[in-house]
């Protein structure tokens, strides 16, 4: 049986990969997918802690995280489609409407 430390290290690595993709990619869809990778790291962390401390609350939190991810993907992708309809681009450094 692998220990809790190995699961936590896996969760940290997945979270850092997702955060790196979130900060550095140009494509808005891949930025949203990076958020999904970060949420998957959190799912591993909560499920491992819930398993090793023998408390069911972590599994319930994982359930809520999956529902939150569904809502967040729906809203985020509709925003991406809206940006593509208005501005004809999905690259984050070409959206200069606000001169940002």
């Amino acid at each position: 049986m692998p220990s809790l430390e190995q699961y936590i290290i896996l969760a940290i690595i997945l979270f850092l990969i997702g955060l790196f993709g979130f900060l550095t990619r140009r494509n808005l869809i891949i930025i949203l997918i990076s958020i999904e990778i970060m949420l998957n790291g959190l799912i591993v962390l909560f499920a491992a802690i819930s398993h090793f401390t023998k408390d069911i609350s972590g599994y319930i939190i994982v359930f809520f995280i999956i529902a939150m991810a569904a809502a967040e993907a729906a809203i985020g992708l509709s925003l991406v489609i809206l940006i593509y309809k208005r501005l004809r681009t999905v690259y984050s450094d070409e959206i200069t409407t606000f001169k940002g």
Partner: protein
Amino acid sequence: MNWDLIIFYYLAIVMIFSSVFAIFSRHPVYTVLLVLVMIIHQAFLLLTLGAEFLTVVQIIVYAGAILVLFLFVVYLINLRKETKRNVFIKRASLIAIIFLVLGAFLMINFFSLISLKPSFKAYLPFTVEEKSNVWWIANYLFKSYLLQFEIIGVILLVAIFGAVFLIRKVKTFE
């Protein structure tokens, strides 16, 4: 070496490498398919943690609903090839160096933290007891966490309304 550690290392290595290749991939369809590989391996990682119900929910909701939604949006948007330009923003290498330092700092911090406290010991999963994992989750979800369950239903409803409101007919201008 027992089979638990072999299965765990296989799942962890495939998850890490598929997510790294997903971030560094040049085409968005490859990214979505690599994330699909990562999510299915993570579902089996949840199975090693004794959460069968969450395994099934992960496969149905993530692989069946969310990633198909991403694939539809990738097909819907006419992406030109990203081969001409860099897929990352300008200062990506600086951010990568900062992330290596941050990851090393987190690992060192974590190991110093667990060296102070006594290590966690592995307990038996819920499934070997007289009730199954699904019974425990349902018992807690519909008794202790009933208000939160209703709130997450309202959040999903509001998300549906928001998506429909955002995608309604707008004037496009070139």
